[in-house]
């Protein structure tokens, strides 16, 4: 399939500005209002009255076309397959957007009397119950704005729990496997813990011996993704849970990869105490090019009182917000969460139903195994971590052989994939795989699409041998060619705003 992305060579909004134009007329006061008040500027202290404001000046249609053109120079799940490993870029159902765009939610102010917000409170309450059921947790907070924010909240709950037990001074370590997402150590650190990294063993699972020797009275908890970033389910999870719990630590579940397990096995049944989920992954809410997402956090019985305030409660008659939780970690953001995102996730759950959710897990795993098995038949690629030839929803392909034999690396391959109209897999992660390409097809891609994707991967593998320059020169079909990322971060050429560009006299 030929693919060609739009390439508008679109200037910045500042460069197409012409003095005097306007793209939207704001409301004017009524004559009665103006008459009573007079000149509004006299109510601004002189020393604070603005003298200059360099915002662009454009007509409405110019602003619209500018951003429409920019949108055409972008690739989303709606544009094509997006097998970005560990990000679960599945189809985002449109009905979820339709519902979230309702004025009945958009025009709701968070401080309105709860008698006026019973509708949304019921939805939030029900959603938290569904998430608790799906994960085997007791209670959820929907507040965290993103997965990493959820991790911070989770790590703070671990902190609050040990503090409550007068044990925090001693328990200052969080254990994290080397295959973990970078947010895990960063979040643990933000919550004041030291991070102890343990290696994976040969099959990609946690090295139980290493874990046993690392775990002690300083262990506050372990953060784990299961299946892990290699797409491997850690079958030793019960043992891991015993080891952590035996020393008084808590087990934290990073929900990045829950998609593989919906309705099959629950973090709570694996022994996890705290869970965060990514609505923009497993629950199909659009990721918006980097947010808004939502990262609800759930806990087992006994930890409910540590959740952030307020929680959404129901007294049999009325839904309300409970701000009084004595052991709570406190507030973690303004108000109650990324509500429109949560509403989309709620809609998604209802669309799938219990049968559909289980089907999501089954088919996401079927699709990943199908792609892995077919690619393995091709000699260019390897899958270094593939125990018993079964993986879950994703796997990590290695282009090590191609690289050693042709000099073409995972980056070149991913850039070439762009030319065929695919978003590339996650590359160079996890770091324990050489020339890693982490592939997560998700359940929403058809077999026909998967076959085309496999064919393309094989074709570019062959191109590495027959026409390696083509790959080095790629991409050629995207709106721009390969980007100078070194220049972008070098102090001399660093350009972070239009203002900085002018002040530095940069010529690009």
């Amino acid at each position, binding site marked *: 399939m030929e693919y060609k992305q739009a390439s508008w060579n679109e200037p910045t909004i500042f460069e197409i*500005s012409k003095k005097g134009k306007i793209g939207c007329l704001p409301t004017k006061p009524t004559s009665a209002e103006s008459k009573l008040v007079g000149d509004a500027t006299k109510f601004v202290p002189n020393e604070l009255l603005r003298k200059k404001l360099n915002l662009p000046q454009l007509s409405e249609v110019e602003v619209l076309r500018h951003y429409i053109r920019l949108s055409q120079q972008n690739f989303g799940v709606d544009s094509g397959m997006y097998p970005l490993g560990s990000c679960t870029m599945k189809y985002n*159902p449109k009905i979820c957007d339709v519902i979230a765009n309702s004025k009945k939610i958009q025009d709701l102010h968070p401080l309105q009397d709860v008698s006026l917000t019973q509708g949304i409170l019921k939805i939030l309450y029900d959603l938290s119950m569904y998430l608790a059921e799906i994960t085997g947790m007791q209670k959820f907070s929907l507040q965290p704005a993103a997965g990493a924010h959820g991790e911070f909240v989770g790590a703070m709950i671990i902190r609050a729990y040990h503090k409550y037990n007068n044990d925090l001074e001693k328990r200052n370590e969080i254990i994290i496997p080397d295959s973990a997402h970078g947010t895990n150590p960063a979040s643990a650190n933000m919550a004041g813990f030291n991070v102890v990294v343990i290696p994976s063993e040969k099959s990609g699972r946690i090295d139980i011996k290493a874990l046993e020797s690392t775990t002690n009275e300083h262990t506050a908890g372990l953060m784990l993704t299961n299946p892990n970033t290699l797409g491997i389910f850690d079958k030793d999870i019960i043992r891991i849970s015993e080891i952590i719990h035996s020393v008084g630590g808590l087990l934290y579940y990073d929900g990045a990869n829950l998609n593989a397990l919906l309705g099959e096995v629950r973090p709570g049944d694996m022994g996890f105490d705290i869970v965060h989920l990514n609505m923009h992954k497993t629950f199909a809410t659009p990721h918006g090019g980097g947010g808004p997402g939502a990262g609800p956090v759930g806990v087992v019985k006994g930890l409910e009182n540590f959740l952030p305030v307020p929680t959404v409660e129901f007294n049999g008659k009325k839904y309300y917000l409970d701000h009084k939780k004595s052991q709570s970690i406190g507030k973690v953001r303004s108000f109650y969460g990324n509500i429109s995102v949560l509403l989309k996730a709620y809609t998604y759950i209802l669309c799938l139903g219990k049968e559909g959710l289980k089907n999501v897990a089954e088919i996401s795993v079927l699709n990943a195994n199908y792609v892995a098995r077919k690619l393995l038949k091709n000699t260019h690629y390897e899958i270094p971590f593939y125990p018993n030839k079964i993986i879950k929803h994703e796997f990590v392909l290695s282009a090590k052989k191609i690289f050693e034999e042709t000099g073409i690396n995972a980056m070149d391959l991913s850039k070439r994939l762009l030319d065929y109209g695919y978003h590339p897999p996650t590359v160079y992660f996890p770091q324990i795989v050489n020339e890693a390409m982490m592939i997560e097809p998700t359940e929403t891609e058809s077999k026909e699409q998967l076959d085309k994707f496999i064919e393309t991967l094989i074709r570019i593998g062959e191109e590495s041998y027959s026409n390696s320059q083509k790959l080095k020169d790629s991409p050629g079909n995207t709106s721009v060619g390969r980007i100078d990322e070194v220049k972008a971060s070098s102090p001399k050429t660093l350009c972070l705003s239009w203002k900085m560009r002018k002040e530095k006299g940069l010529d690009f």
Partner: protein
Amino acid sequence: MVKTSKYFIHPYIPNSVPEIREEMLKEIGVNSVEELFTDIPEEIKLKKELNIPNSISENQIKDFIELTLSKNITASEIPTFLGAGCWPHYIPAVVNEIVNRSELKTSYTPYQPETSQGLLQALFEYQSLICELTGMDYANCSLYDWSTSLGESARMVTRITRKNEFIVPHFINPERLATLMTYAEPVGIKIVQTKQNKITGQTDLTDLEKKLSNDTAGVYLENPSYLGYYELGVETISEIAHKHDALFVIGVDPISLGILEPPSNYGADIVIGEGQPLGNEMNYGGPLLGIFGCRGEKLLRQMPGRIVGMTTTIKEAHRAYCMVLQTREQHIRREKATSNICSNEALCAIATATYLSLLGPIGLRNLCETIITKSHYAMKKLNDIKGIKAPLIEAQHFKEFTINFNETGKKVEEVHKKLLKYGIHGGKILKHDFAELGETALYCFTEIHSQQDIDKLVETIEKVLR
């Protein structure tokens, strides 16, 4: 004849068709999907169905959820005068058109810049527009909200100065203060509050000097303040803070910068704020948009969050964009990262870029003048009511101000309840957070409030006080 399958085939899951599934299983070399789950120990597998409703049609779901949502009475259905961290403003139609473009909406973080130029350029423009508005040199492409921006700013200034005290004003949004406390506690940052004059609201400079020490990492102030009035001593406060080698952090409602001097002009090193009023729906308080901008090279490498930079292509040196300075971030630095930020509020930032481009300097200035006219129209009318003091704080205000009911002999909750009965939602009651203000509430007026809404409020308050 078209036959209905007895199998469950969902519109989002094409390969659930039995024939396709069989074909794929054959290719894999297993007999059933269950075989693909044999790596999960039997004893932990879920043996029951999830207690979640069965799937229903899209049509039914829409009806069902809309019925639930119909129980909400929104701020556009009854006149509502709430602000306090989330504000009603008109959003131009073009903004909705852009944020619903699916190429932007359904993309992930732009890890592959060549295919994400649109998003990256839009975010670069957002950063640039925030810099113009605030006077900062650079801004990140968003944090979660004002509250978490405040938490991150406290952590940032303590990392830079290697000191551990952070001074904040007395009149601060309690949610913001509480979030700051959560962010500060694990790293041992001590939060110190300065006194503010009960009558004028202004920061008590003597008290501030007293509280500043060799341990002060940063001084934080909001302008306009949480109670809606302007701080006049900002330049002096900046000097005092800098004299103690502390960084000066300013929090803003950015819409006010259409008429107010940028915080850079009075010495701010870091500007944070809530970007929601610039083109984002209230959505019951989320998503919001955390603004974060800084000045000077010294601060750059400690700034949290994703940053987009302008650069060129390697070969033709065409202008292009990508994420920069990633060595600060979690996916490279892991536990040594400046923050754990990964997903932020990118699409909200694009709404804000579109909004600011539409209004431009003239539109934004006119909008601010309308807001001030509306709020002062309400202020004058309300203050004329016997027993009401509006504003309670004797200073100049932007779009929010305090209304005190002490002399009316009525409790502020009682007024609030009666207003609701008449179909009006009053402002935020302040007495639980600031007892010294008495029977006071914080009211908000913007361009969306019609004169009829305001007149109705005034008449109804007169009625309930009678």
